[in-house]
């Protein structure tokens, strides 16, 4: 944690309110995100208990598994989830714009530009917390290898085709969420704690209710008081006033409310099965329906506060102006979405269980590159982030005190002006280090030439080396002027390699597919005690 971040937290403690950790919004927010608030059953590997899902904050769709140990009910839940999510995804797949991308020509091996479709916008999934992202991944994994009756008429529990399809989408979104700066699948706690420093620890920030309490405490309460209430306050029944944001439930909820309700449901089912005639069955069916309604009400009761909290958090984030580079990163997300759409359309098999070595290495390299890109862009977009880099000696700002024209040697001399910047920052400049500033959104390079201490700081002499046009004299505006305020960074603004789309790991299968990919993988074997 940087000192600036630490100061933000300390100020939050003192004022009783979260303080800005960013001055712009660093992630894209869709106008119409799909919010998913899932719950799982304790102790079961990702066995769903229920969820609220949808794009309308006033009308979430409630999905419930009344007996999470029942495989058929779990499968029905997943099919319903597919019904809720796939139309939303599809609604973005059709609208495209023409774009160009670079591909390797399979015959010549050269990088060539090809025309391509790019989806004009992409679906965005918001979950309350990091656990939600994990669950998206887990659900994706559990669904994408399910077999349909068409694929395999013998399969013991055939899935409707939309189930494996959703599994592939969730897998894609789960993978994409590992890419720094990506916004296809976001956890609200991550989003909020990126933008606000609370008066509690990062560990406690994982609690959505407590985090929101610091950022936007109710009238008459400090953040600390409101957060404590969100964490601990219980009603007369021993139930948390602010239920955990999931996917895990509160043990007191499981033990006092859910378990008895599930037991009643089980009894009603057994009774129905034992009914001897139609009349008796009718009555018992009604009892079963009532038992199921009770469980649905319980699940709604503990998901709805989280659902509302997620939308409230989104409101708070929307109030921040969007960072200048956010759209560029979102375009990468759109490419990612379009790429997966194309792979599904082309009939490619689901993502393998494990990446082969080449794919894994590609992904790792891509993540490192995107992290560097994100770090640079956030600093350029946000003075508070830049301040952290300045504090770390990785950037400096100051006023230009002198500009001396100079030229390179050689047959065609080019301008190499010497610019002196007076700064209070303490950049860690090595001899002839390269530094960069943003000139109309593009990086201009300079070379560190000399350094001279002065009261309250230093004079730094730089030689500008590019972006001044082709002529002997620099183009107007391309050289900083005396009195101008400038900001130079020691880190590069743009990342080389793979910069231009699409994702490197996504060699289209028409071009041989990702290296070493085997054929379609078999479904998970079904055993008596399967849990998903």
């Amino acid at each position, binding site marked *: *944690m*940087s*000192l*600036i971040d*630490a*100061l*933000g937290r*300390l*100020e939050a*403690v*003192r004022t009783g309110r979260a303080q*800005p950790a960013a*001055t*712009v919004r660093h992630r894209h927010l869709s106008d119409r995100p799909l919010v998913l608030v899932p719950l799982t*059953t*304790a*102790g*079961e*590997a*990702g066995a769903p208990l229920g969820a609220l899902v949808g794009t309308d904050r006033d009308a979430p769709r409630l999905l419930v598994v009344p007996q*999470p140990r029942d495989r058929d009910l779990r499968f029905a839940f997943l099919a319903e989830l597919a019904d809720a999510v796939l139309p939303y995804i599809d609604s973005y797949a059709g609208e495209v714009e023409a774009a160009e991308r670079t591909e390797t020509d399979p015959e010549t091996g050269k990088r060539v530009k090809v025309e391509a479709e790019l989806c004009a916008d992409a679906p965005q999934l918001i979950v309350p917390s990091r656990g939600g992202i994990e669950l998206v991944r*887990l659900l994706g*994994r*559990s669904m994408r290898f399910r077999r349909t009756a068409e694929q395999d008429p013998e399969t013991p529990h055939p899935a409707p085709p939309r189930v494996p399809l959703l599994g592939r989408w969730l897998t894609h979104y789960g993978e994409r969420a590992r890419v720094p700066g990506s916004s296809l699948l976001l956890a609200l706690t991550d989003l909020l704690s990126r933008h606000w420093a609370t008066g*509690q*620890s*990062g*560990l*406690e920030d994982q609690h959505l209710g407590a985090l929101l309490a610091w950022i936007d405490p109710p009238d008459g309460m400090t953040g600390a008081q409101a957060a404590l209430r969100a964490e*601990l306050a219980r009603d007369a029944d021993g139930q948390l006033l602010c239920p955990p944001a999931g996917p895990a*439930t509160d*043990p007191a909820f*499981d*033990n006092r409310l859910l*378990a008895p309700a599930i037991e009643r449901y089980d009894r009603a089912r057994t009774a129905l099965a034992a009914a001897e005639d139609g009349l008796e069955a009718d009555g018992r069916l009604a009892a079963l329906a009532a038992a199921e309604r009770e469980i649905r009400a319980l699940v709604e009761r503990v998901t709805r506060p989280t659902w509302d909290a997620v939308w409230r958090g989104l409101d708070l984030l929307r109030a921040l*102006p969007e*960072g200048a580079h956010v759209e560029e990163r979102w375009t990468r997300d759109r490419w990612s979405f379009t790429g997966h759409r194309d792979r599904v359309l082309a009939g490619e098999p689901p993502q393998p269980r*494990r990446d082969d070595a080449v794919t894994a290495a590609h992904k790792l390299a891509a993540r490192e590159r995107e992290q560097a890109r994100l770090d640079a862009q956030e*600093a350029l*977009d*946000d*003075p*508070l*982030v*830049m*301040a952290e880099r*300045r*504090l770390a000696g990785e950037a400096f700002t100051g006023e230009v005190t002198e500009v001396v024209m100079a030229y390179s040697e050689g047959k065609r001399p080019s301008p190499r002006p010497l610019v002196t910047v007076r700064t209070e920052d303490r950049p860690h400049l090595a001899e002839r280090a390269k530094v960069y*500033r*943003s000139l109309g959104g593009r990086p201009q390079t300079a070379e560190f030439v000399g350094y001279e201490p002065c009261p309250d700081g230093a004079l730094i002499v730089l030689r500008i080396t590019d972006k001044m046009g082709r002529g002997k004299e620099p183009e107007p505006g391309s050289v900083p002027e005396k009195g*101008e305020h*400038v*900001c130079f960074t020691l880190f590069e603004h743009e990342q080389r390699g793979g910069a231009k789309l699409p994702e490197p790991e996504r060699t289209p299968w028409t071009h041989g597919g990702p290296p070493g990919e085997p054929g379609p993988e078999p479904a*998970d*074997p079904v*055993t008596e*005690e*399967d*849990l*998903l």
Partner: protein
Amino acid sequence: MPPPRTGGTALRHRLAELRGPDVPAKALDARALAALAANPGCRRRAILDGAGVDKAALASALGAPPVFGQSQFAFMRGNAFEARVKADGGAELLRLVRETLDPGAEPPERPHVPDLTAPGPEGRRTRTEQALREATAAGAWTLLDHPMLALDVAGSPALLEPDAVVVHPDGRWTVVEIKSFPVLDGSADPAKVGAAARQAAVYVLALEETAARLEPPPEVRHRILLVCPKDFSNLPTASAVDVRKQRAVTARQLARLTRVEDIAGTLPDGVCFSPDLPAEELTAAVEAVPATYAPECLSACELAFHCRARARAAGAVTALGRSVRAELGGLSTVDDVLAAARGEAGDPDDPAVAALRRAARLRAQALAAADREGAAPCP
């Protein structure tokens, strides 16, 4: 049980006083050892655990009850899985041990599963030791189901109950951990595997204490067997986990613990942690032992909400996390740090103070710039 290495009756008497009249001692368990790992330097935790105080009851009496609890679903599932792993008189489990750790050994034909029932934990511990001795001498595959082991922690015995210990035909011993988190496509949540490895390392140390009392001392293997459900099924899959590192770390932590009698010696007379006492008195008693609260306590120690409230009330910066504290040099309260940052206090030649002022200035500038321009940082 051998007599505790130090102290003797005087210490035992003192610790009983700290617990309160007629309050039985609570033995250290795996949960207490997890708290120890999360915050080894905390003397408050050390003396409470050492004296056998029920920290959950104490926390409730202080008005800050812990929130640990287990869902019955998780409990049932864990039990069902463990039963499945140990079914058939341990045949499947021993097969996994042999296959994973000792493929050269003869296959377990008819595993011995000695009866370990005995009255009371101490009785079970003695019975376990006897069974271990017999199994080692017999030279046959033996499964000890929920044995009871003892480990000396800062002068007080902790009683531990691993899921299972296996004695190999060559007389070596292996700790078995059965967990209900899944291994998905060959990998499991690293945090959970890490926690399991730390727990197993404690069992390894406890087994080594037992082994040291045998002649010749049998070898306790440092590769333990972790058994988890495979993918989305209830089928067990086993992996060998090397716990040498965790064992070394825990052994070092245990060796460095301030001995309970030393802490007890610093307490004023009359201090008592009995949950029957009024909250103010208990608060004062707890306050008499220094604590080192950090947010990690929240998931490990029953007293965390109480200690957090006290840390916050005192303005301790560690309440915000150890990493915050690390940045701030010697300044330890919110007010001190902010005063130093604003230039109202602190020695400007102190590098920590100077860095703080620079950070505060840069932060203020950036926020002002953003306010002015709606954010356009890099001209």
